């Protein structure tokens, strides 16, 4: 256990250092949240404060968190492959999933910084009033939400480890999540048939929980239902990621495609 934690810590530290050396990552966690928040603010200009908090502030925060955690973690696979290090990481004595967990946690810490930055920008420069009616529930939602996003990132990294089109698939996943999770508009405006899809994605629950706790929870039954939903999908992601990592372990050795660029 101690050794595993040491691997996670080293991998996390190295990941943060490597990520910050890349200009694209600096864009994703510093410039993108600011520009995205400004764009959303200009689109939502003239709407009341609660709309600005719900869609400009929270929407930007979740969109950037999603981007920096999920995409960066999936993109890491692609980078390792391009540098010829993927097969080395895969075959080293520490488990591949443990190393990836460290990388994902590193991205999560930086993603959290990005979320705080977007909040600060919206409050300070765009003068949006931000008060949380139920701070305890808000913090709880954020913490469980981040754990859920870590599981998503692990699941994506497993899925994309065996695909050569990692970057393309990764980029094509951005807008479906923004659309179906109701990041910058409510999911109620989408056709009803898309609703089940929305509720298989954890950002939908994260946004609903955060919005409820900011505005004030009127019905705790509904709040706990969403919380239970978030925990359930997170557990499903966890089971799937564990299973996928076992599958790719066999598949990668059998097909020998890890180093194929």
């Amino acid at each position, binding site marked *: 256990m101690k050794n595993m934690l040491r691997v996670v810590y080293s991998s996390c530290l190295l990941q943060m250092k490597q990520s910050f050396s890349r200009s694209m990552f600096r864009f994703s966690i510093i*410039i993108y949240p600011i520009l995205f928040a400004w764009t959303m603010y200009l689109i939502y200009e003239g709407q009341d404060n609660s709309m600005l908090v719900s869609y400009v502030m929270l929407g930007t925060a979740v969109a950037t968190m999603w981007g920096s955690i999920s995409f960066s973690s999936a993109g890491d696979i692609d980078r390792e492959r391009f540098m010829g290090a993927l097969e080395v990481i895969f075959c080293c004595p520490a488990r591949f999933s443990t190393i990836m967990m460290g990388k994902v946690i590193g991205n999560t810490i930086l993603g959290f910084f990005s979320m705080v930055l977007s909040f600060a920008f919206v409050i300070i420069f765009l003068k949006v009033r931000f008060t949380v009616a139920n701070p305890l529930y808000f913090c709880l939602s954020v913490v469980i939400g981040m754990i859920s996003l870590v599981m998503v990132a692990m699941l994506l990294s497993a899925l994309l480890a065996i695909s050569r089109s990692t970057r393309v698939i990764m980029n094509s996943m951005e807008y479906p999540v923004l659309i179906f999770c109701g990041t910058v508009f409510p999911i109620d405006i989408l056709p009803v048939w898309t609703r089940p899809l929305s509720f298989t994605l954890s950002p939908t629950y994260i946004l609903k929980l955060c919005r409820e706790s900011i505005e004030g929870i009127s019905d705790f039954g509904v709040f706990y239902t969403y919380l239970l939903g978030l925990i359930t999908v997170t557990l499903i992601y966890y089971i799937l990621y564990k299973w996928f990592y076992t599958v790719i372990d066999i598949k990668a050795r059998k097909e020998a495609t890890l180093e194929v660029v």
Partner: protein
Amino acid sequence: MRKFIRMSLLSFKAMFGWLDPKVYVLTKIIDPCLQMIFYSLLVRFTFGSSDITPWIIGNAFLLSTRNAVFATGSLLRSERFEGTLKLVIASPGNKLSTFAARSFISIFDAAVTVVVGLLAGIAIFHVDLSGISYFQFVLSILTAMLGGTSLGLVIATVALVMREIHLFLNVAAMLLFILTGASFPIERLPAPARTLSCFLPVTRSIEASRIIAEKGSIEKIYILLGTEIIISFIYLFFAYFLYIYFERKARIDASLDVY
């Protein structure tokens, strides 16, 4: 000319995924459609029940311009990562012709993306483009792509002295989104940003396409498109001079094969 076309096609096929149709479909058809749907739903929600046709047109133009900017902007970066940048620079061939050939197909390819985006708009959001002048509309699309490509080339030249060009490309794409008035009225921008939007390519093409869709003044359409072409050529010349400057700097600093 045959060599120019052959080089255009070959580099396009190799660099933008035509060797794998799945990649092409994902990046050039599915992703633009999803982007279009996202922004159209957003403006429909924020602007209420008002006609969102102008915003759908604006977004269709913009997402393809993004393609044009990224396609041309990544040219030199790709060469660097494949280890061929120093060979291209050292070769006796005309570099302007080489890079023009590589960007050439991007103009038409990005125009295809506009059509895909507009078809998505027509199918999902019932955008009405019946009775418009298709000649003027195609002209406005090609003008916008020329503008996007010229901006992409300016950014591409920076790749001669920098390893990671994606920071510039992404900032440029976001600024185009904010400053061209594709998704919200330009009047909402602060005064300095409004001034900056006048100097950017694509702004006038989007405005012209909206006038075409509303069947407005023909004279105004041609003035806007004419100005856009002039601005695009200014960017192209700027890209050329920047290229000369950065090529010299890259040779002096010996940074061509740093990656």
